[in-house]
Structure formats: C-alpha cells, structure tokens
C-alpha cells in the first residue's frame, strides 16, 4: 500500500467541527473534524452509536431525510462548501455513499438496482455496461441472481448490491458505511481488496466507517476514532494499530495473543477516553 503521508496531499474533503442534532433535541455529534486527502483511504472507527454513520450522512447531505440537522461547523469538498448542495449534486461531483443497512430498491431486480447507480452518468451506455460487467466480476453471486427482485435476496447479497451500486457511479470519493457487515469472511477480504484496487488503480478516495477494526486499519492509511460524538484519537493507520489502547479495545489483543471470546467473562470493562 502506498504509504502516503496524509498531510503532504491536499485535503479533498474536510469536515470542520460539525455538530449534528436529530429531531431538534438529540445532540449526537459534538464537534467532529476530519480530513480526507485525495487518494487516501481513511477509516472512521468507534463503538456503536459513536456517530460514524451520522458523520457520513452529514457529509453526503442525507441527514435531512432523518430530521437531522448540521447546526454548527462546515463541510468542504475540493475547497467548496457543500452543505447547501443536494445529495444528487454531490453524487454528480463524485461523492457517493453506501448506506449502512443495505437500502436496496426492493422491487427492482438486482440488475436494475445496479443500473440505478449509474443514474447520474452521462458517458454512454457502453461504458455503463462495461462497469456492470466489472461489478459482476467482483460479485459473481449477483450475476447469478441478476433477475431476482432485490427484496428477496439474502442479507449478504443485498450488501453486495449496495456496494456494487455505488461502484456503478464511478465516484471520486466513496463513503462506505460498514461495508463488511454481514459478509462472509472471504468476501470481506474481497471487498477490501476492491477498495484497495480502486484506490490504487483509479485513485478513488475512501472514507469508511467500519467495525472490523483490524481490516479497516490494515487497508487504510489514516484513521479517526470517534467516541460519543467526538474524535478522541486520530493518526496514521499503522500508528493506530500499534497503539496499546487501540490494540486492547479494538483489536482484542492483549500482549501478543488474541483473546478468546469464550473467556470474555473474566475481562474487565474498558475505560473510555472521553465521555
């Protein structure tokens, strides 16, 4: 992996001290700042409810639909403030999000689902067809199920649809929310390989929220750890992976050994960095 130093490149996407409130009263992000460099793969880590998905949705402007509001701070993409842009405008500029929890179009077939991903593209049918083939190559399982209605596919298949659909947009930045969720182990690896390939070959930038910390840190070059709506730690992925706390709480290694899930009972609850 290209060990690019984050600060040497220009920031493609930067989030400055944003605050997000749901339903007028529920404050979830309390000042989150982060930067994604062009061509980088940035991981967003943190426990459940830390605000990872919220951060991603704030960037792609999908919060409105959930009655969430960015009340403070700013978000810029290529130096331009994008908070007032509509989601489709953002997709046109190359920022696309794969939402957590699949969100397939149930009544459309698998193939139609993938094609909707190319909705904003204007480079002609044949290019789209090529990319469709590429997606099928990544996920052969989808090819088998191409004419089924997406609502009837299995959980993992839906996850593949969601990721494949985003790839169809040929984006510059992909915001991936828990891409590995519900996927079989070898597919998890494949997904990350795809991330790596797109990043290296096509220069696609990634911001991914992921629970599988090990994988995420292995494939990314920078990481942020979110807790309770705040960034509590950030740094080079390799550095984070070496951090004792991260090791203990996110990677599950104490000393050199992996802990067994069977012995968790004896394990003491961890401290929070900040609460």
């Amino acid at each position, binding site marked *: 992996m290209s060990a690019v130093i984050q600060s040497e490149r220009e920031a493609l996407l930067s989030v400055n001290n944003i605050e997000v*409130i749901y*339903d*007028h*009263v529920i*404050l979830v992000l309390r000042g989150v700042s982060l930067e994604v460099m062009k061509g980088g793969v940035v991981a967003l880590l943190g426990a459940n409810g830390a605000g990872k998905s919220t951060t991603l949705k704030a960037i792609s402007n999908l919060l409105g639909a959930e009655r969430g509001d960015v009340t403070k701070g700013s978000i810029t993409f290529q130096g331009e403030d994008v908070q007032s842009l509509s989601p489709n405008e953002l997709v046109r500029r190359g920022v696309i999000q794969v939402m957590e929890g699949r969100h397939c179009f149930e009544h459309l077939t698998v193939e139609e689902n993938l094609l909707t991903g190319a909705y904003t593209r204007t480079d002609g049918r044949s290019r789209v067809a090529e990319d469709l083939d590429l997606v099928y190559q990544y996920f052969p399982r989808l090819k088998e199920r191409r004419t089924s209605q997406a609502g009837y596919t299995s959980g993992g298949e839906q996850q593949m649809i969601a990721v494949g659909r985003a790839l169809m947009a040929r984006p510059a930045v992909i915001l991936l929310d828990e891409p590995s969720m519900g996927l079989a182990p070898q597919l998890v690896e494949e997904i990350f390989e795809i991330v790596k390939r797109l990043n290296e070959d096509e220069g696609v930038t990634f911001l991914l929220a992921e629970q599988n910390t090990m994988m995420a840190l292995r494939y990314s070059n920078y990481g942020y750890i979110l807790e309770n709506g705040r960034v509590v730690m950030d740094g080079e992925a390799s550095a984070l992976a070496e951090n004792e706390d991260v090791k203990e709480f996110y990677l599950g290694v104490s000393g050199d050994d992996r802990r067994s899930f069977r012995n968790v009972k004896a394990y003491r609850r961890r401290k929070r960095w900040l609460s």
Partner: protein
Amino acid sequence: MFYRENGQFKSSYSSDQAIFPIAQDRAFVIGILLVAFCGVPFFINEYWANAILIPLLVYALAGLGLNILTGYCGQVSLGTGAFMAVGAYASFKLVGFFPEVNYLILIFVSGLVTAAVGVVFGLPSLRIKGFYLAVATLAAQFFLIWLFNKVGWFYDHSPTGMITVRPIDFFGVRVTGPEATPAAKYLFTLTIIATLTLTAKNIVRGRVGRSWMAIRDMDIAAELIGIKPLQAKLSAFAVSSFYIGVAGALYFGVYLGSVEPLEAFDINQSFYVLFIIIIGGLGSILGAFLGAAFIVLLPILMKNLMVGGFGVASGTAGHVEILLLGALIIFFLIVEPHGLARLWQIAKEKLRLWPFPH
C-alpha cells in the same frame, strides 16, 4: 426549570408505569379535568356546546377509536363514517325497543354492536395490507351506508329515511333533543369520553396494546415472536369500532339530533376523522384530542375571523377557508409529520433542557 423529573424517583414498577409518571404532567391534566368538569359547565352556552365543545369531544372520541386501529395497530381504515353510522343506528333502534333502559347502557350496547360489525369488516385485514386495506374498508363504508339508507327497518320507515333522536332522560336530566341544556349534554358527553379515554390508555399500555403496536411496526416479526395476527388485528378492529360506535351514537343522539345517513356518515366523515388522527398524531391518545381541536376549531376560527373580523364575504371566506385549511395541514405535516402530539412532546423535551439548548 420548573419542568424537571429530577428528584422524582420511582420506587415501584407500578408507579413507573403510571399514566403520567411526571408530577407536573399529572398536575396539568388534573387541572384540565377540573376546569372541564367543574368550570366549563357554569359558563357554557348553546353555541359553545352545540357548535364547539360537543363536536370536539365526539370527534376526539371517534379519533381515539380510529387511532387505536390505525395509529396503534397500523391498519388504515376509511370506514369510520360507516362505523359511526352503525353506532348511531344501533342506538336509535335500541332506544326505540327499550325506551326504559338507561341511555348509557344502550350507548354501550351500540358500541358493542359496532364492535361486532367492525370485526366482520376487519376480517380482510388478515390478507390485505396498507392502502389496499384502506380502500377495501371503503367497501364497508359504501355498503353499510347504502344499507341504512335502503332498508326501512333501520329508519323506522320514515318517508325521507332520516332518523331523529327521541328526547331521552338520563337519571332525570334531559340529555338529547333541543330541550336538553347545553351543560347537561356537555357533561354527559364529557363523562363518557373521559372514561373511555382512560380505558383506551390502559389498553394501549398493556399487553394488548403492545401486540397492536408490534403488528403495526412489523407484522411478520410480531407473528414470529408469538403474537397472533388474527387476534391482534381483530381485537383492534373490535375496540376501535366500539369507540367509533359510541362516538357515532353520541354524534347522532347528543350532537346532531337527526341525521341522514348519506350526508352525516359519508366518506368525508371517514376522511375527517382520519385527518384528526394524522394531524393530531398517529398512535397518541393526546393526539386525537389535539387533532380534533385543530380540525373542528380551526375552520370555525378562520371563518369567524374572516367574516366577523375582516368583513370578508362569507362565500369568499368559504373558499379561502378551504384553501387555508389545506395549507395549514401541509404546513403542520412539514413542521412535524408525527403530529401535534409530537410537537407537544418536543416542546416538553426542550422545556426539560431549558435553559440549555440541548
């Protein structure tokens, strides 16, 4: 500052499950009830009773009934008008058959009759869902009204097919017809509605209510964890229809006094009640009251303001009123799709945080 639950600890589950666990809420509601029962009757006049408070209460009750079905159990129904008609006609016939029996009992029985009819028309809900069910309940709407309009027995063969309430005494006090005093009508209605509201609240916070909500939120999952869809849906239809039936009986007996089925219980009536619960808040008891207040009072308020206040011609005011009502409905849906009840709740949550913004 004043609205805090700090310092109010619950020492038993039963107190935690009280209807208003927060003391300020409790005081507020008791206050309202006191005013409603002991204050209003002294000041009420015919206009307030016949044009405002009684329709408000009756519609709130119908809204409560529909909310049980639609808001709590998720079954959209457009047959409310017809079910109200069942209650009205049942009470009309019952009063004719048993003039000696206490009116309250007859109203209760009318509710039961409606519940039975509701269950029958609820049967398709086992297979049909969402808007399909909504439109299917229109079958009930049109069929029942047709029946009441067509079969002479229901309207005692009056030449026009209208039914008119007889003068009825409730423990010696006249509660129907033009001779009943506004206070008597109002208190009679209010008592029934207050009682039924309490029972509704009890039902929805218990097992049955939870199984309704489970069916509403995700019927398949509900079935898989052991809730019988048949039982849950039909019981919702039954309870809901009971409420709507009682509302219908009051609507006919106490509020209007004489009705023509095609007009009083037509599909618009069904929509009207549906507006009430959507504007008020689906799945909220308070919502039925807020919604009824909105839908019943707002047009009157607008009319009086325009005609009385600004001297707009009444015809023009009529058009503007429709327009404004529509616009306000949209406005409130945009501001808070979950209805006035949610708005109220958010306001309370803000108050709880006050003076801090979050």
